[in-house]
């Protein structure tokens, strides 16, 4: 067991993947000597060289586009997009090429490319550094979309994403980078499949569904709700595409109530997909509508206002209360 921060767990996971497979490459802006702006790739260039940890020119489309080419030549590139709001110059390569080329080739081409994106707010950053663009990518067939919420998952999921034969968009909750936990870096028998979610707290009255940075917020809300005599179950989805639907539906059928929590705007957000699916599949077991807590239908606000924009413990509890009001 080692105690690792989430960023260090990602670093250790990538290091392990690079040791296991010489075809694994890291590429992105400032990932070399600097170790990335969040230090997630710290020390990797020193140990694996400039051919495997590639400081790229500052152009996101170029990063993903050349990663595709490297994958066509048999490499397994892990691209770092420096911040969530910077992924859009690469959107064309991700959506029209990375996601679609395998099908275009009738299966002749596999693109084992990972696109790592630090996401979410809460760090007092300037514009474009606090966004949650996951729904753009869950809407794109051909991509797997995952989000880690804790160091142990960060360590395993990044390795599984790198091993996946499919392209993976890998969201990292940037405000949780520095949170630490014990990680078993020796044994692998505890690993879960990449496309499975996890029940992180069991409860009987209501299900909170979250991923990435909001998992911790929901766990805190569940603890607080306990004081009100409510037993709250919390699910960490981990994978957004595909969705671990059985895990979600089994829980909601038991509790009869569900609240989806994410930082992204509620409107057309990933929570809308969950709400619709839960309604379709658990209709007769629902005691209340599926509620959603998330960002407003506004651009991400200046950081002095972000505590109003981001769902916090109170807004989650408010939704729980509303769910019990039906």
């Amino acid at each position, binding site marked *: 067991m080692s105690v690792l921060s989430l960023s260090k767990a990602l670093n250790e996971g990538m290091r392990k993947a690079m040791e296991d497979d010489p075809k694994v490459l890291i590429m992105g802006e400032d990932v070399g000597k600097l170790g990335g702006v969040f230090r997630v790739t710290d020390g990797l260039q020193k140990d694996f060289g400039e*051919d495997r940890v590639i400081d*790229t*020119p500052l*152009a996101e*489309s*170029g990063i*993903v*586009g*050349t*990663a*595709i*080419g*490297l*994958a*066509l*030549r*048999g*490499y397994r590139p892990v691209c770092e997009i420096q911040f969530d709001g910077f992924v859009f*110059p690469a959107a*064309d*390569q991700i959506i*029209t*090429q990375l996601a*679609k*080329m*395998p*099908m*275009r*080739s*009738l*299966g*002749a*081409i*596999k693109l084992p490319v990972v696109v790592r994106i630090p996401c979410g707010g809460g760090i007092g950053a300037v514009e474009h550094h606090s966004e949650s663009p996951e729904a753009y990518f869950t809407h794109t*067939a*051909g991509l*797997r979309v995952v989000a880690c919420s804790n160091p142990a998952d960060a360590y395993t999921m990044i390795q599984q994403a790198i091993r*996946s*034969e*499919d392209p993976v968009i890998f969201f990292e909750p940037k405000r949780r980078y520095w949170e630490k936990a014990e990680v078993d870096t020796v044994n692998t028998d505890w690993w879960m499949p990449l*496309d499975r979610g996890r029940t992180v707290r069991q409860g009987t009255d209501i299900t909170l569904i979250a991923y990435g940075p909001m998992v911790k917020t929901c766990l805190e809300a569940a603890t607080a709700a306990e004081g009100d005599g409510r037993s709250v179950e919390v699910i960490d989805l981990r994978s957004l*595409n*595909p*969705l*671990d*639907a059985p895990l979600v539906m089994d829980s909601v059928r038991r509790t009869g109530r569900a609240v989806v929590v994410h930082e992204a705007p509620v409107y057309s957000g990933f929570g809308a997909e969950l709400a619709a699916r839960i309604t379709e599949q658990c209709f007769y077991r629902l005691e209340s509508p599926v509620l959603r807590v998330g960002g407003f239908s506004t651009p991400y606000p200046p950081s002095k206002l972000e505590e109003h924009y981001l769902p916090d413990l109170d807004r989650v509890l408010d939704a729980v209360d509303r769910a019990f009001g039906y």
Partner: protein
Amino acid sequence: MTLDASRGAQAPPELVQLLTPEGERVEHPDYDIDLKPEEVRSLYRDLVLVRRIDLEAVALQRQGELGIWASLLGQEAAQIGSGRALTDADMAFPTYREHGVAWCRDVDPVKLLGLFRGVNHGGWDPKEHNFHLYTIVIGSQTLHAVGYAMGIQRDDATAAVIAYFGDGATSQGDVNESFIWASVFNAPIVFFCQNNQWAISEPLEKQSRIPLYRRASGFGFPGIRVDGNDVFACLAVTRQALKNAREGQGPTLIEAFTYRMGAHTTTDDPTRYRVASELEAWKLKDPIERVKAYLFKNEFADQAFFDSVEGEADQLGADLRRRCLAMPDPAPLDIFDHVYAEPHALIDEERAQYAAYLEGFES
């Protein structure tokens, strides 16, 4: 401001040309090529056959057998010259118009028709031919090509990559990013721009104030303009650029100065935006006629040879038509195939649901 888009009969300066439109061999101080008569006959055969493939595909579209077709008419020399410069180990990244390069890479022409007929999005295995799938979004493939070239560097392999694109694509961010990447990583790549003067309806002036080959200097690698209707020059210049790339000298931009003699695609109507005299001027610079004239003048081929190539072309066209019409339609549930390489719960669920839905019609 003088714009360099002499789309008429006048050849622009700085043009590498080894065979004039009249079929005369000319010398060039930097590029030369020593082709045996049988090699010239072979190039001639390539040119004629790919023109016939193209003609047949246009006819198939007009008869409703293809949804659309992007004709290569007029660009045969640029494609055959550059395509025949490739070694087996080299890798090519085409646009959607490189039917002539596909021919050089031994891709069965009927496989090109699949995406235009709507039975698939790409019907060949790129690894089998070292010829990537057609890319429809303009310029995207240039980055894939550079990434692939960076892979060649990491493999320590002796090979190069050629990336095809058109004059319109040079305005794309991806193409410019690919120039930067290739330059700073010294990637073994040749950027082969077929400047056919028109990006659908937009003339070159809408893309550039300077000749396209000169763009390369700003990125730090050589740019060369070649007569794109001269198969000898295209072969010689591309061969040299690929050799330089394989030997670690980095990228080259080749601007093949040519002309799109047909429409952009079969849905386009060039009479709305260009004058007929322009086409007439370029017809005098036809890429095939000059090779034929050269072979005749030098008595490297007789009428029997030309007749036999025509006969082969007729056969190829008929065979392509027959096999196009025989191409099976995909099955409905094929929609769900190959979206992911590994099992995916959502795809599996939707496939099963749609299969059950379809079965409902059978009872």
